[in-house]
Each structure stands twice: as C-alpha cells, then as structure tokens.
C-alpha cells in the first residue's frame, strides 16, 4: 500500500494543483483494478501472500511506468521553457552575454587597479569576484527570461502550437538585402551594450580624468558619485531593454515594420533618461571643470554665458534628441516604403 501511495504522490506532485485530487482518486482506483486483476491470476501461484502482494504491486507500477513520464502524459502539452526552434540561438546568445559580461568586469577590474580609484587592490579583486558571481547570474537569468518570453509569445510559435494548416502563400518574402539583419549586427550591439552596462556600474570609478603626477596618480571623476548612483538602476534598466531588442533582432533576422517601430519605441526611455539626467545640474562633478580650467590657465570661464556643466548637459541632450530624430526618420521612411 505504501508503494502505491509513494507512486501516486510522485505522479501528482508533478501535476497542476487543480487536477491533483481528481487524478489521484482515479489513479488509485485504476491501480487497485490492475492489482485485483493480477490477483485473480495469482491465486494459482504457490508463494506466500504478503510477498505476493508486494510483487504484484511492483509489477503493476512498473507497467504504469516512471511517475515523471506518466505525469508528463497527463499534462499533455509540451513542457519546455525554450524549444528546439530557438535553442541554438539561446545557447549562442548565452555564450556571448556571459563572455561579454565577464570580460567587461575583468576590464573594469584592470582599469580600477590602474587608476587606483576603487581603493586598495585586494578590495578591488574581491569586489570583482563578487560582481562576477552576481553579474553572471543576472545575465544568465535575463537571457533565459527573454528567450522564454520569445518561446511563449512569438506569433510564429503560437501558430505552430495551434497546428494551423501551413499555407505556402503565407511564407514571408525573402527579405531584400537591406532588410536582412545579419547576426553580426545584433551580436556586436549586444556585446557593446553589455560592456557598457558593466562600465556604467563602475562609472564613478572610470569616467573622469586620470593623470600621473609623479609619484602619485590622480583621478577626478566626471560625475558626482552619489547623484550618478541614483540614476544607475534606470540606466541599467534602459540598457537591458535595448539588449532585449537586440535579441529580438537576432531571432527575427529581418526588419519588419513591427520590429522597426518597436526598435524606435525602445529608444524613448533612454532619451527621457538622458534628458532627465543631463538636466540635473548636480550630476557633474565641479572639481573636474575647475581642474580643466586650471590647466587652461583660465580661473574663470568668463567667455561662457552658461556654466560649463550646464552646457555639457545641453550638448548631450542635443545629441540624444538628434540621434532619436534620425532613427525616427529612418523608421518613417521604412514605413513609407512598406506602404508601397
């Protein structure tokens, strides 16, 4: 009896909660039916009744097969997070992402060691080990999440699941050369984006001016660390969105109107973030401008109407808006051509 309970438990724990009790009841009845049938056959057998029953139970359960397999049959639908159609892309992207993240962190470590901006070398190395673990885990999770979403929600997959009749007339046109997305494009963007994410996390330590003033090395960061760190989660989030878009481009392999619009839409959060950040006058570190003017032998930037940092911020915003407008026009042109 105990064996049967164990077997049924092993099956039902793999099933959705709402089906468990019903399948348990049915399965128990079925096993008892099978046992009763085999007992009819066994009455002629000479061995002792106790071991007989155990043997019969074992035989019946073996007939039913491995609980995991039986449960899988009860569940019916395919049970994978990422199916064979996109699995090769998944492993490819995963390798790239892990390598780029790991590489970026190592570069960050080396730069920190050289500039000495991150404290003593031992701390830097320990810190890097810590970031490697959390960074690689986060990268792994993110890639898996994106691919699981593609598996679930991509229109093509949904069609396959519904077993729709394949109509050759629905086959997409072979994309014109300019519409094709060569894998190297999104892959390069992904690598760039990942390294940028790592660098962004270390910006207060990296971005600034560094010079050797024998024997000491000097480093003045460009940003106020505290203010920058406040924005960091948003920076990383917008970068993660961009990274997702690149994976989408890789999987799609062609420019479609939807992808182009989505691609443009993804730029909006980064644009907003750029404007917000660059409008914050506390973002920049005053010391860096003082130092630059000292080198230029200008104690006071009298020839600027605006303080230097506000000007820099406006230039960056201008570039950001310009870039967005260019993208928008490109998308619009693509749309017009599509409409023909």
């Amino acid at each position, binding site marked *: 009896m105990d064996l049967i309970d164990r077997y049924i438990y092993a099956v039902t724990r793999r099933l959705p909660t709402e089906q468990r009790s019903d399948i348990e009841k049915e399965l128990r009845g079925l096993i008892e039916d099978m046992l009763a049938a085999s007992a009819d056959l066994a009455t002629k057998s000479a061995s002792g009744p106790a071991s007989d029953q155990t043997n019969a139970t074992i035989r019946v359960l073996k007939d039913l097969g491995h609980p995991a397999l039986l449960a899988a*049959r009860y569940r019916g639908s395919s049970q994978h997070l990422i199916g064979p159609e996109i699995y090769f892309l998944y492993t490819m992207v995963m390798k790239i992402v892990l390598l780029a993240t790991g590489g970026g962190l190592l570069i960050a470590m080396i730069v920190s060691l050289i500039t000495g901006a991150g404290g003593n070398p031992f701390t830097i190395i320990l810190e890097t080990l810590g970031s490697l673990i959390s960074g690689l885990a986060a990268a792994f999770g993110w890639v898996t999440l994106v691919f699981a979403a593609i598996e679930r929600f991509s229109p093509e997959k949904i069609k396959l699941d519904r077993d729709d009749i394949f109509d050759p007339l629905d086959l997409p046109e072979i994309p014109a050369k300019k519409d094709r997305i060569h894998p190297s494009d999104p892959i390069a963007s992904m690598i760039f984006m990942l390294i940028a994410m790592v660098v962004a996390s270390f910006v207060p330590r990296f971005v600034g001016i560094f010079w050797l003033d024998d024997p000491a090395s000097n480093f003045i960061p460009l940003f106020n660390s505290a203010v920058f760190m406040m924005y960091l989660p948003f920076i990383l989030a917008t970068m993660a969105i961009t990274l997702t878009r690149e994976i989408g481009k890789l999987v799609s392999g062609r420019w479609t109107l939807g992808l182009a619009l989505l691609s443009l839409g993804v730029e909006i959060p980064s644009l907003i973030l750029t404007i917000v950040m660059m409008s914050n006058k506390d973002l920049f570190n005053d010391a860096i401008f003082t130092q630059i003017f000292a080198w230029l032998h200008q104690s006071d930037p009298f020839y600027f109407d605006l303080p230097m940092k506000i000007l820099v911020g406006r230039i960056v915003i201008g570039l950001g808006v310009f870039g967005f407008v260019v993208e928008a026009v490109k998308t619009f042109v693509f749309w017009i051509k599509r409409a023909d």
Partner: protein
Amino acid sequence: MTDQKLLFENLVSELRRGSLILSVLALLRQPQYGYSLISGLEAFGIAIEAGTLYPLLRRLEKQGLLSSEWAIDQVRPRRYYVLNELGKQTLTHLSDEWQRMNKAMDQLIQAPSSEQGG
C-alpha cells in the same frame, strides 16, 4: 541483430500508435473505466500500456470527445468515460478513414513490385 530487433519494435509501436485512438473510441461507445478498457482491448488482441491509456482518456475528454462521471456504487469509485455526440461523429469519420486506408494499404502491399517501380 538486437539493433534490428529494436528498430523493428520501434516501427511496430509507431504503427500501432496511430490506430490507438480509433480503437479506444470504438470501445467507448459503451461506458468504460480505465482498466475495463485495457482488458477490453486485450480481448481484441490490442495491447496498450496503462501509462499511455489513462492520460489519453483525459486528453480526449479535454478535447471534447468524451464525457465522464464518477460511479461510486461499486467496490471502489471508478471514473467512467463514454463517447459524447462529437465523439460519436469523430468515431464515424475516423472509421471511414480507417476503411479507406485499409483498402489502399492492402492494394499497395499486394501490388507486384514491378508496378511500384513505375
């Protein structure tokens, strides 16, 4: 030799798999519970694994071909399955298809090999 045997067994079970649903539907013109179906099919010389049949019944019910209810007036509670209206129609269609295929396969298998080459 054992590889060949394994291959042969795989091919046979693949062949059987296709006819399984039809044989189950055919028996389910009368209400049946899981084990009675197994012994019922065995009576016709059709072997089916319990681990395949029980989940199949639920799937057919979910697809709307069967209805089921618990019978509790017996030694142990049993879930009885039976064809509903859609199930009956489906059985008719499948049987027609089976007959047609059977005829075609017979002809194909018995055809002289010289004609196959043409």
